[in-house]
């Protein structure tokens, strides 16, 4: 993975010094809250219901064991012993003190981490495929390009006061594990006719109040033009994006109101006019960064893993874990191991400091020290020898991290909701907990198979409910928590927005509703059909009838 050179270090350290000065000014009253707010947001520091919240950037969801141990240390020393992994592959601390935040940032800088631009109306963390560099079928490791975009977008003088936040996601694989089609800019690596690698550029995706699937504005952009083309898009957005209405300020609205064709024309016109002023991407620099993403020293291993297979035969718990949490690796004898942060009855995506340390140790032992964060709020050890899976599993069991439910119904995505977030209208975590408790039975989970439930506590949709197979949105109805249910969404390459079933439900009713949807699916599915496939075949009505009893 990428390692800072002297310039990267200098920027992050200066930024810490700068923020320390800004905090001192604020505490001394030289900056009002209105003046300070955009500054602290640009360093990822929010004010939430109970306390501040610090959002640490984990660039493209990749970190190493040393960084994970630092995150654990910060949780212990400066917070309440835990952190929350988010749907943008970042980590949130829920209880930092403003006066200690410069110290926290200094600790992070020691291990090449920061909280720069994880909030505010600027370009946010670039997210990516959690299996980058490990799964089959990748054109190139997209994280090379994520790192290039990260540097270009950091403290960009022209784009630090955009109409609204700006989120970019990159995938190197046809199978989109990064939800690129619901990002402000989504990039899919492609090959052109001559085999050259480049990007399909998708603009204007997004969830929230007005969800949109992004539009392809350029089918193939050669790699060397990436930064100049992004700069053209951002410039058009900076100039055209609405400033009068916060709810219409994202680029998805700009594209919608301008029309995709006209928007594309404006971008292409700007791009053509840029000439010499465009940011350049010298091959030397690309090669320099690419070297950091070269594969680790994989051993030459046979495909077969007899010890692992023997263990699976004798230990159904291990077998289930392999079945759900382990994915194929492109190198013979290796595997991708997912670590679920979705235990039954607990907040999705949370990890204690002890668990973070355990993951760091296991990464050192089994994955070349490398760890990934997924947008589904789970972790990944990307390069594990198959024969090491049993020992890894035992380590995860000891750390309380062996929930075998990746992609299953209990692998729920949920935002922090009204338990933490100042923007929320309803709680989301208790709904997730109750659903996982209702569906705790292993066999039933396996019977149901792939099912993505996503829960948001407000219309901002940080829980991605629009693209859940079952999406749940919490609203405030006359002071009571109330939940709207939609079905049929999808976050992958066949991205789709879910459709609302009908009138909403109370917190008590909503778990029953999920059960009815699941029962309908189980009754109606044909052999081997997943939930989303059944839904697409039979449509909304059978589910609606079952839930509202109108059949």
């Amino acid at each position: 993975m990428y390692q800072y050179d002297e310039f990267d270090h200098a920027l992050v350290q200066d930024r810490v010094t700068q923020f320390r000065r800004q905090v001192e000014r604020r505490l001394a009253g030289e900056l009002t809250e209105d003046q300070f707010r955009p500054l602290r947001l640009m360093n990822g520091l929010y004010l939430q219901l109970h306390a501040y919240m610090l959002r640490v950037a984990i660039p493209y969801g990749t970190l190493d064991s040393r960084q994970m141990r630092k995150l654990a240390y910060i949780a212990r020393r400066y917070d309440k012993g835990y952190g929350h992994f988010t749907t943008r592959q970042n980590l949130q601390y829920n209880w930092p003190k403003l006066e200690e935040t410069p110290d926290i940032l200094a600790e992070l800088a020691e291990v090449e981490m920061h909280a720069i631009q994880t909030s505010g109306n600027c370009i946010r963390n670039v997210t990516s495929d959690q299996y980058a560099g490990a799964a089959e079928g990748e054109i190139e490791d997209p994280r090379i390009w994520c790192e290039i975009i990260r540097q270009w977008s950091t403290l960009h003088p022209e784009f630090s006061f955009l109409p609204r936040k700006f989120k970019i996601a990159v995938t190197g694989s046809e199978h989109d594990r990064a939800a690129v089609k619901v990002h402000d800019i989504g990039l899919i690596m492609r090959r052109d006719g001559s085999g050259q690698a480049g990007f399909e550029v998708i603009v204007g995706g997004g969830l929230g109040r007005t969800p949109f699937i992004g539009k392809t504005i350029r089918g193939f952009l050669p790699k060397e033009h990436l930064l100049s083309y992004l700069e053209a898009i951002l410039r058009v957005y900076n100039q055209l994006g609405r400033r009068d209405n916060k709810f219409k300020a994202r680029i998805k609205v700009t594209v919608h109101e301008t029309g995709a064709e006209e928007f594309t024309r404006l971008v292409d016109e700007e791009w053509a006019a840029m000439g010499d002023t465009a940011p350049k991407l010298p091959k030397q620099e690309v090669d320099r960064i690419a070297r950091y993403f070269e594969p680790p020293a994989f051993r030459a291993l046979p495909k077969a893993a007899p010890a692992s297979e023997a263990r699976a035969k004798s230990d159904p718990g291990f077998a289930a874990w392999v079945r759900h949490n382990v994915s194929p690796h492109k190198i013979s004898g290796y595997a991708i191991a997912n670590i679920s942060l979705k235990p039954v009855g607990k907040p999705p995506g949370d990890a204690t400091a002890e668990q973070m340390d355990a993951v760091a140790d296991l990464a050192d032992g089994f994955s070349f020290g490398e760890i990934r964060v997924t947008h589904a709020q789970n972790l990944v050890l990307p390069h594990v020898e198959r024969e090491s899976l049993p020992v890894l599993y035992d380590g995860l069991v000891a750390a309380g991290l062996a929930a075998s439910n990746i992609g299953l119904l209990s692998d729920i995505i949920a935002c922090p909701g009204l338990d933490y977030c100042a923007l929320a209208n309803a709680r989301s975590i208790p709904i997730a907990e109750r659903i996982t408790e209702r569906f705790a039975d292993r066999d039933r989970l396996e019977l149901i198979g792939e099912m993505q439930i996503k829960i948001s506590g407000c219309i901002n949709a940080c829980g991605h409910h629009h693209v859940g197979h079952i999406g749940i949105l919490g609203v405030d109805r006359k002071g009571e928590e109330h939940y709207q249910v939609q079905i049929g969404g999808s976050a992958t390459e066949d991205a789709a927005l879910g459709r609302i079933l009908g009138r909403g439900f109370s917190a008590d009713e909503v778990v029953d509703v999920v059960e009815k949807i699941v029962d309908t699916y189980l009754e109606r599915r044909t052999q081997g059909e997943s939930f989303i496939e059944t839904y697409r075949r039979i449509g909304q009505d059978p589910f609606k009838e079952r839930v509202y009893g109108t059949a």
Partner: protein
Amino acid sequence: MALLESRADGPALIDDRYLRLDETAPIPAEGAVLVSLVRFHAERAALLARKAPLGVWLASNEKPVAVADDLERLALVALDFPVFSDGRAFSSARLLRERYGYKGELRAIGDVLCEQLPFMLRSGFDSFDMKSPKALEEFRAVVGEVRVVYQPTGDGRPTAIDRRLGRR
């Protein structure tokens, strides 16, 4: 209100020599004046006929292309920040400098936050209508605080990539 000018030898507080005219005030025969874009278009001939410096200010929703052809005749272009969070003027500034080749004074007016000065300087601004009495102090504290830049702008400052390649 302090007018802060950024010069090669450092920042200086100066008196604003421009008289800002509203839409109806009579245009004086002499002296530097600053008018809105609307007024400039409406009374272009009269304004350009004067032998005194002329400045035009653009609202945040007015595009720099509107003055692109007249830049050689303008001593001052001012770009308004109605609120500091309205960052359109950063793009306008860069276009004026880098695309249209503007060489005169480029001023930030309106809600100018000192924390934005580094971004403004890099985008091509060289004078700032600051509200704070401590503008000079703030400039010195803020500018140069972050020693490395990743992106090229018209200021010609070497980026991290430039320095990496130079190092080799």
